[in-house]
Structures are given as C-alpha cells and as structure tokens.
C-alpha cells in the first residue's frame, strides 16, 4: 500500500515521458498525481490513531550485503507531509501549464521530472530505513537540479549549481554520519533499520558527532541560517511553480528529518544541542524577516519569508515540548500550502508583467480584482492571520517554545510583526496605488488559475477552522517521538508562580 504511494507517481513519470505529444503528457501527469492523491486519502483513512508510531509497515530486503531494505512505515507525521505532497503536486502541475511552452524546452521532461521528484519525496517521508532515506534524500537533488537549471531564469546555471553543491555537501556529511550510525549497530547484525537503531544505546560523544552530521544536512535542506543562502537564488531563478514545490514541499524533508530521525536517534545530543539550534532558529526568524522587508524582487521576498518561517518550524521542533513539536509539524503542512499559494500567485503576476520587480507593478487591484484577492489571501496566510491554519501552527509553536525558552519565544514573536510588514508592503506596492499605463490592461485571473489556487485556500481555511483533523494524528506521533527522546513538558511558568 505504502509502496504504491511511491510507485504510482514514479509510474506516472515514466508514462508522461513516453506518451506522444505535450498535451497528452500534461494530462497524464495530472491524472497520475490525482490518482496519488486519491490513494493518499485511502491510506489516511486506515491510520489507527491509538496504534504504534509506525503503521502499515512494509519491508522487503533490497541490498542484503549492505543491510539495506525497502522499508516504509506511516506515522501521523509522515501522513501529514505525504498528504501535503499529494495535494501540492497536482496544483503545481496545473500551475505550470503554460510555463515551459516557450523556449523550445521539453515539456514532457518537465512534467516527468516533477513526478519523479514527488515519488522520491513521498518515499523519503515514508522511509523507515536510514540508508533508504539517505538515498532518496540525495537522489531527489537531481530532478530538482534539472528543474532549476533547465527551466529557470537568467541566472539559472548559478542558482542550480549553488543549490546542488550546498545540498550535496550536506548530504556527504550525512553519509558519513549514516555510516557511523550503521557501525554502532552490533557487528554481525549490522542494520540501517530505524527501529533497531533507535533502540541502540549510543554514548553521548558519538551521538554528538552523528547528530552534527545529520543536522548539518537537514539545516541546509530546511534551510536554517547560516546555511540558507542557496534558497533565495534557487527559488528566484526556478520557475514559480518549482519555487513553490521546492520551498513548499521538497524542503520539508529537512525539517521532517529533524523530527523523525534526529530526535529519536540521538536523544542525548538533541537535548545537549537544543539551545544552540534554538538560537540559530531565532536568528533565522529575524534575519529572514528583516531581509524580506528589504527585497525588491517578489520571489526573493517570498524566499526570505520562507527562511523566516523555517526558523519557526525548527524552533518548535527543538523546543522539545508536545505543543511545540506538534505545532511545528502542523506548520510544515500549513507553510507548504501558504508558500505554494504565494509563489504560484506571484508566478501569475510575473507572467503578466514579465518582471519580478516590485517597481514594475502597482495599481493592479482595479484591473485584476480576483488576482489581487488571491495575493491578499495568500499573503494573510503568510503572516499567520487568525482563522487560517498558519495561525494555529505558529501559535502552538510559540506557546510550546515559551514554556521552555521564554526569550526565544518572545524574539520569535517579532517575526510575526516582520511578516506583517513585508507581506503588506508587497501587497501595497503591487496592487494598490494609482493604475499605471503598464498595469491598466492587466488581465484578471482566469479559470485555470483560480481552480489551481482554490484548493490551497480551502485547505488553509479548513485546517484553520478545524485543525484537529490533522493535528490529532500529528500530536499522537510527536508525543511518541518525544517519549523516545525522554523529555516531558515543563511545568507551566505562571502556574508555578501562583502557588
């Protein structure tokens, strides 16, 4: 069942590459991604909320001499992220409908690459074998690399190279840590199986080094300050729908790895290094927010806002409280939806004006009210407006963090104010103001564009009103994870004061 979730998009990629004609390829790709979405719903209904952390596990020996097996398992955390991927993929495929038609680049390859990427990302979310996770984690760089490098903007070569080198370097460090971890398992029965490795009792020093190897890779992927610099370039140069997919979905593998691998595998090191990571996360929140305010390029604004939001996610994870960690996981989904919406709507705007600069827009509210409404709603989700799911998640993270790191939580709250600033500045400069000659004839959002973005808004609002649907399975899973780490929530600060 879980294997089918990986194989379905992979099969779709092959079919997309084989069918004749660009239009048929597009339709095949969309069909494959919708089938994956349907299968995800079926899988989701089978998750038993009271059951063990990993359910519906599947295991097939893959490379016996290495101890590698194709083993997948579904937890509440992975379900949330698989669902995000399954929802985002058809949307992204729809959003890029006209994106590649110009320039004589292969449309089929474009669609096939996205589906390949989806298969690898879903595989990484489901993997319960550390080497399998690593293989998918690394392999997914290649399709993403081509998506940026072949289909991107003017500086795509530089952006693609920077993206690949950063992530490859992180990946190599992680490889060393994966090997080191593997050698911790008892000789004769060496294994990469997550469950067996979690059960090991690794001494603190070794844990520290292995933690470092994994965390650097995930911090680059996430991305966390100070190893974030590839994201603004990659997201700006990538086609808008790929920027949406990259920072909305693919980068979540990094934060997912922190929750699903780092925490349970290295409990001691996690607790030792948590203050350091929390500090970096707070810096990311503020730094990303401040830089977003200073940008003049729409895609760069969204990219820096993502860095700020990734800071919030990492903050919540390493607060090591049930609210913080669950909130972070929920935020991964909410942020995925919100960033995807922002990048896709920005893509529509850029396609109309042929420019990414704020200065080239202005007054688009009048000629294009629907488009402007979409940008406003996407923007509000970015600044965590109450009623939207981003608000619920950000709130949980901050509350969860506050009970352990008051100062960090207080500083991170400033991030929300910064978000209000850069989002509203962007909206104001592009949509309000006098109608300029360049923008007065801007066509409004059309059928396909509305249909593509609508599901994102429905989900953002739906999960904002009824977060429990997704938050409950996440909460069950994160509590079990925190038990493995061996931390319990601190006493509420003020309750202690009153006694």
């Amino acid at each position: 069942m879980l294997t089918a979730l990986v194989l379905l998009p992979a099969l779709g990629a092959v079919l997309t590459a084989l069918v004749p004609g660009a239009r048929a390829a597009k339709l095949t790709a969309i069909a494959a991604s919708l089938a994956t979405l349907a299968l995800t719903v079926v899988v989701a209904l089978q998750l038993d909320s009271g059951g063990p952390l990993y359910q519906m596990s599947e295991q097939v020996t893959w490379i016996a001499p290495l101890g590698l097996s194709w083993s997948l398992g579904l937890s509440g955390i992975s379900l949330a992220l698989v669902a995000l991927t399954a929802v985002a993929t058809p949307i992204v495929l729809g959003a890029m409908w006209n994106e590649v038609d110009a320039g004589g680049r292969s449309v089929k390859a474009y669609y096939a690459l996205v589906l390949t990427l989806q298969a690898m990302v879903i595989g990484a979310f489901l993997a319960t074998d550390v080497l399998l996770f690593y293989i998918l984690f690394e392999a997914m760089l290649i399709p993403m690399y081509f998506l940026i490098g072949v289909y991107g903007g003017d500086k795509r070569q530089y952006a693609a190279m920077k993206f690949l080198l950063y992530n490859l370097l992180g990946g190599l460090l992680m490889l060393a840590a994966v090997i080191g971890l593997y050698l911790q398992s008892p000789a004769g029965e060496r294994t990469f199986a997550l469950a067996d490795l979690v059960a090991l009792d690794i001494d603190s020093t070794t844990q520290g080094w292995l933690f470092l190897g994994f965390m650097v890779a995930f911090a680059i992927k996430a991305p966390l300050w100070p190893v974030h610099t590839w994201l603004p370039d990659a997201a700006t140069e990538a086609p808008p729908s790929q920027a949406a997919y990259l920072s909305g979905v693919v980068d979540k593998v990094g934060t997912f790895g922190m929750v699903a691998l780092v925490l349970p595998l290295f409990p001691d090191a996690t607790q030792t290094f948590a203050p350091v990571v929390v500090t970096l996360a707070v810096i990311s929140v503020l730094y990303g927010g401040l830089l977003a305010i200073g940008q003049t390029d729409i895609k760069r604004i969204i990219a820096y806002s993502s860095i700020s939001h990734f800071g919030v996610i990492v903050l919540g994870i390493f607060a090591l409280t049930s609210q913080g960690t669950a909130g972070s996981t929920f935020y991964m989904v909410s942020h995925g939806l919100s960033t995807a919406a922002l990048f896709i709507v920005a893509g529509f705007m850029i396609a109309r004006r042929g420019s990414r600069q704020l200065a080239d827009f202005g007054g688009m509210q009048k000629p294009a009210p629907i488009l402007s409404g979409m940008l406003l709603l996407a923007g509000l989700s970015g600044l965590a407006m109450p009623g939207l799911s981003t608000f619920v998640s950000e709130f949980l993270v901050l509350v969860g963090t506050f009970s352990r790191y008051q100062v960090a939580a207080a500083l991170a709250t400033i991030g929300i104010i910064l978000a209000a600033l850069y989002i509203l500045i962007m909206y104001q400069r592009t949509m309000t103001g006098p109608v300029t000659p360049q923008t007065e004839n801007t066509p409004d959002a059309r059928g396909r564009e509305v249909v593509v973005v609508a599901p994102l808004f429905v989900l953002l609002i739906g999960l904002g009103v009824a977060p429990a649907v997704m938050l409950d399975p996440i909460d069950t899973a994160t509590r079990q994870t925190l038990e493995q780490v061996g931390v319990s929530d601190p006493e509420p600060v003020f309750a202690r004061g009153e006694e």
Partner: protein
Amino acid sequence: MVVMQDITTPTVDVLAILPIVVTLGAAVLAVLVDAFAPAPRRMLVNASISALALATALVWSITRISADPVVAFNGAVTIDGPGLFAQAAIALFALLSVGLYTERRLDPSGDPFTPAGSVMPGSETERVLTLKRVQQTEVYGLTLFASGGMMVFVVSSDLLTMFVALEVLSLPLYLLSSLARRRRLLSQEAGMKYFLLGAFASAFFLYGAALVYGATGSLNLGAIDAGISSRVGVDTMLLVGMGMLAVGLLFKISAVPFQFWTPDVYQGAPTPVTGFMAAATKTAAVVALMRVFYVGLGGLVEDWTVLLWVIAAVTMLLGSVLALTQTDVKRMLAYSSIAHAGFLLVGIVAADSQGTGAVLFYLLAYGIATVGAFAVVTLVRDAGGEATHLSAWAGLGRRSPLTASVFSLFLLSFAGIPLTSGFIGKLTVFSAAFDAGQWALVLVALVASAIAAFFYVRVIVLMFFSDPADSSASVGVPGTGTTAVITASAALTVLLGVVPGPVLELASLASEFVR
C-alpha cells in the same frame, strides 16, 4: 665445485590459469591473423577471436570464485578470490574496449587507429595510406597481450613473476597509446612519455624486489612474510624495498606523486584505448598492490598504512582540485581517474577483507563507467576528429539529449550519487575504512567527493543548461560496436546502483587473499 641442487619441476595446472592461457593464446592467434589473413577480413576475425577469448576468460573466472583457491607453478601464482574477481573485471573491460575498436562509422577515414604507427605523422606515406583506407588490426593482439599480462599480474605471488607480468602488460599499452588516427604527434608523445616514465617505474619495482630479496631472502610473497615476522629490529633495506615496490605499483594506479603521465597519456592515446587503460590497468595494479602489501608485507602494516594514508589523502584532493581547472574532457577524466585512485586507496588502507571486497566492487563500478564515458567521448566530433574541448560540449543536451543523458549518468556515478554504481562503491569503501578506524581519512574523502562533484556537475551544466555554441561539435552516429558498449555500460552502471546485491556478494566472497 658446483653443488647441484635438486630442481623441483613446477606442477603445470593449466585449468587454474585458463583465463590467462586463453587470452594469451588468442593474442598469438591474432598476430598470426594479422600476418596471414586477407586484409578485408582481418578486423572481423580478430574482433571475433578477442571477444570469444575474453568472454571465456570472464565466465571462467566468475565461476571459479567460489571454488577453493589454487597455488600453482611452484607458488608463482595464487589463484584466489581477489585474483579471479580482478581477472573477470579485466576481461570485461577488455571486452567492452574491443567493442569500441570495431567502430568504423564515426571517423570518415576509417577506424580510430592510424594506418601505420611507424610512419612519420603528416608525411606523404601516411596520407596515401589513409586515402587507400588501409587499416591495421594489431590493436586486438596488443590489447589481448596487455590483458593477459594484467591477468597474470593480479594472481602472481612472487615478485619476479609480478615483474614479468608488469612488463607484459605495459609494453603493449605503450604501443597502443601511440596509435591514434587523429592528432598523431600528441599520440606519439603520449606513447613515448608513458614508455619512459613507465620504464622508470618498472626499474623502481625491480630494485625494490631486489632489496626485499636481500632483506628476507626470498621473492615469494609468503616467504617474504615469514622473513619479516622473524626479523629483529628495524630493517632499513626492507623499508626502502617496500617503498620502491610501492612506487612501481602506485605509478600504474596513477596515485600522487606518480600521476604526472596520466593526463598527457589519457589525452593523447586513442580514446577507446584510454578507456581500456583507465579501467583495466587500474584494476590490475590495485589488486597487485593489495596482494604485495597484504600478503607479502603484512608484517609492516603499521609502516605502509601511514604511507598509503598520506598518499590517499593527497591523491584524492589533488586529483579533484586539478580536475576543476581542466578544459579538455579527456584530461578532466584523467584527473578524475587520479581522484578515484585516491578513493580506492582509502579502501586499501582499511586493510581487511571488508575493505578488499569494497575495493573490488569499486573497481568494477568505476571501470564500467570509465569505459562508457570514454566511449561517449568518441561520439562528439568536429572536422578535426573528436571534439574534446569542453566548449564544444556546450548545449549538447539540447541537440542530442540521449547522448548527453548517458554521459551525465556516468558523471553522476563518478560523483557517487545514489542509484548509480558509484554510490554503492563509495558507500562500501567508506564504511570499510570507517569500520577499520580510519574515520579521519573518510572525512578527507568526503571533502574530496564534494570537490569532485563540482567538476562532474559542471559538465552537466555545460551540456544541459548552456546554449549551444556556433562552433560546437556534432554527435556522430556510431556503429553497432560502440552503441552496444555504451548501452551495456549505462545499463550496468544503473544495475550496479539499484540491485548491486549479487555482485556485492560475489565481491565479498572473493575478498580473501590466500597467503
């Protein structure tokens, strides 16, 4: 008065060395075909003989891996797992290369080799011979002789046999290097340079063997080991001998600081020959190096681990860094081959059977991708023959997506990206070294891998993300041989990356040297 010793006649076990017998026999046959067969048929006959012999050697070696090891010819050769695995790999690489030799469609004036190696480049005679479409077929015989030498090299268990094998494998390679059809001067220079430096390295090896003989009283590896264990104190003669043996062998592996010949020779030699040299010579020399050090000099393990540790680190870093600056695709692959020599040494430093198995797998994975990569190089051509300057490769992905994709596959395998054979090779080598406590060297290797990834990926950027230059070359339509070789190499590279299980098991079965 001379005291007569009893001479024990060596037991001749032909079956044990069947791959060698078949390969060298076919080599002799190929020479006879050159002399007596009518010219138009020579190529077909020679290619068939070579393919048949090499395929026999390949299959025989693989089937014998699980059999008991054999010590034959009075201890001159030891047919054990690593030797057989290496023989199989060498036979496979030679087989693939022979497929490339048969190419006659790419070059408008004939095959990839000169019509007459001894004629002055650019002379009237050469022009006439080219016009008459004269084609020589001695490359087949020479390749078979070289392969036969390599097959002896990897199983020889005394230093004298090893030296003879070294010469048997080297001399044909010197000749092969200078037989390119285009850029004759460069090719002749390559052959000359390889010969002079190679002869120098052989002399080192021979002197090293003499010193080790002086220190231990034997040339047989087992007896040398016994001699070392019974010695008292530090023996300078022995250490110098060890160092000189290492020089001879590291030269063939192209490890730093004995790598100077590699870029020039790889660039000048005919491309199909470059592929063969890069893959097969490295395999032969690596296995011979392991045999000499593990079996013969096992008692000096502390000394040579330090030596090889340093050489491995320097080789990886220097190879990767210098590859960054290359503008010629063959020279870039040469530096990449140097870097890979370093990665292989990481596995050798592990000095246990896990390391040996990992190195054997790595050799196979690297060799297949190397032959494949050089095969793709033969396709990209302009008016002057192969267009090896990287600028000519710009935008190749737009014009010939398939060729560019296959070349990218080989590059990704070299870079060690998952789902290619190179990843499994790196993973096994690094974990063996890590397990042997060499984690510092593994970290160096990771840094080098990151640098190396940069220049492999740079070529992909050039092919796919750049716009085609006006002067850039076109991709020729290859004949059956080249197409088959590229297809097979690409398929094996993916196969060894996705389902490496059986081969890994074979390598691990073959990982014990017999003392």
